[in-house]
């Protein structure tokens, strides 16, 4: 099977400061990938470039064998979406309006959402448990609720691939598990390909089937959590001494604090 999403020799720099160095990777349909690495390792930039959100220097990202630079924005948005970590909102939009915005790539100009779009949005809100406050304003709800609303909007967009930039970093444990469980269901039931930038290594290993470890703009390791979580690799990349434990068949990273 040919890869679904492919990154070929991608290098990227902001104002001549290199951020990504010769990244290559391929993603199969239905993958659940965690993109991990220290702050500044290039996770967010890589996600934005894969999602077509930042301008690509050349044809370095391909989706279903087409370079994304050659695909129309609306067509690309039907195949793939990107969800930022934070959602600053200046204007008062309701939850329902935000979720319906996911239908944009399916609508012609000058039109309003139809019955079908409302049905899809409603279903997306049910999936993310946001339907009960759909007529409230986005700025009035909590961080965890905002993240679920943005996820509902992404689901309404009905893409094959979702790229999420640290979807759980700003949330407490309950909301982290809630978001990741919804994502797991989307992956298992609708075969949506997921790539998540994540900070929490243990949550990443628990939910993602494949981890890609970035450091200094380059891929250090790419594989299952067991393949990536190796004591010397993690210690090198993060600059912290760690112990690895296995609990209920899952591998956990435990930092050794300076006193011990």
């Amino acid at each position, binding site marked *: 099977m040919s890869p679904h999403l492919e990154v070929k020799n991608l290098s990227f720099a902001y104002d001549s400061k290199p951020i990504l160095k010769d990244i290559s990777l391929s993603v199969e349909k239905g993958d659940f990938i965690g993109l991990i690495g220290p702050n500044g390792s290039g996770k967010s930039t890589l996600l*934005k470039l894969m*999602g*077509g*959100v*930042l*301008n690509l220097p050349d044809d370095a990202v391909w989706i279903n064998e087409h370079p994304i630079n050659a695909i129309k*924005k*609306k*067509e*690309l*948005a*039907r195949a*793939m*979406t*990107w*969800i*930022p970590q934070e*959602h*600053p*909102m*200046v*204007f*008062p*939009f*309701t939850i*329902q*309006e*935000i979720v319906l*915005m*996911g239908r*944009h*790539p399916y*609508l012609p*100009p*000058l*039109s*309003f*959402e139809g019955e079908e779009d*409302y049905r899809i*949005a*409603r279903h997306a809100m049910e999936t993310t448990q946001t*339907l009960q406050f*759909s*007529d409230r304003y986005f*700025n009035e709800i909590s961080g965890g609720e905002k993240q679920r609303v943005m996820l509902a909007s992404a689901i309404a*967009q009905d893409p094959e691939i979702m790229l999420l930039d640290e979807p759980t970093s700003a949330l407490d444990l309950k909301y982290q598990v809630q978001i990741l469980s919804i994502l797991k269901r989307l992956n298992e039931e609708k075969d949506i390909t997921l790539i998540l930038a994540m900070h929490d290594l243990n949550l990443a290993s628990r939910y993602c089937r494949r981890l890609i470890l970035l450091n200094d703009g380059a891929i250090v390791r790419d594989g299952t959590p067991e393949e990536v979580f190796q004591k010397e690799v993690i210690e090198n990349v993060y600059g912290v001494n760690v112990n690895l434990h296995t609990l209920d068949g899952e591998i956990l990273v435990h930092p050794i604090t300076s006193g011990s």
Partner: protein
Amino acid sequence: MSIIMGHYSYKMNLVIFLLLFLATLCVTPLIGSTQIDLANALSGGVHAQNNLDANILFQVRLPRILLGAVAGAALSVAGAVFQALLRNDLAAPFTLGVSSGAALGAVLAIVFNLNISILGFPMVSLFSFLGALGAIFLVFSLVRTRHGEFPTSILLLAGVTANFFFASMVMFLHYISDFGQSFRIIRWLMGGLDITDYQTVLSIAPMVFLGIGLLIYVGRDLNLISTGVHSATSRGVNVPRIQRIGFITASLITGTVVAITGPIGFVGLIVPHISRLFVGSDLRILIPVSMLFGASFLIICDTVARTLIAPTEIPVGIITAMLGGPFFVWLLKRKRQV
């Protein structure tokens, strides 16, 4: 629970604001420093030379009211669009230097005594339109990245800089002007709707309404940009293209109006805000509602300006500016509470 509502309530809102506009259009011509007899005014037709009531109604008040409608509509829509594009609810049509560029053009024409007209347009109007275009071109060509995008923080900064720069040139020209020119400059800078012909209104209306139509056409794209450029891109919006269309169209309709009326402040800030309270932030609704409400609002302000200390007429720009200060205070207090 009214969870999924559809856009039927929006249509209702449109009808209400249309009725408000029509009521304004019917009532305000009857208000003024001179009482007019409506029956007599309507009996003779538009060009009855010896019918004083008809003259006041059709030659004095109506053109001015129609200009108020076009100007109010243009400034309000431009304000709503600038606020969305810049993701800043304090942005206004003049934020990016359009009005100060127009002022520089107008003041140049006044100081150099260019008193001829071309194609029916006085030089002051033509120069101020060119000044507005020049300001737009300058600001956007300074800010535009090599990917064709307009980073909003830099745009705001460039706009403020352009405003200060053009304002200093205006002050310099004002300082070296003679007494009569100085009066004309001050008068132009106050902004007003005092015209006495339909030709002026007819010459700017097509440009303004074509522009507003185009902005409504890209309304859903503008909605998405107002929530963030990156997420708009991932929803399928061609952000650089919509930014170009939005900024240039909103600036052009602003420049077109300002060339005739001078800068009428705060309309483009106040009207989108109040409209948003009624119909929400969806620009597919907010643009037409701002257009109707802005037209009504400026006509009403100008009616106040015509009658407050009648028979002296105050430039409407003074009235809108007087409303603008308290409005800003209200806005700040409201934002603090949220």
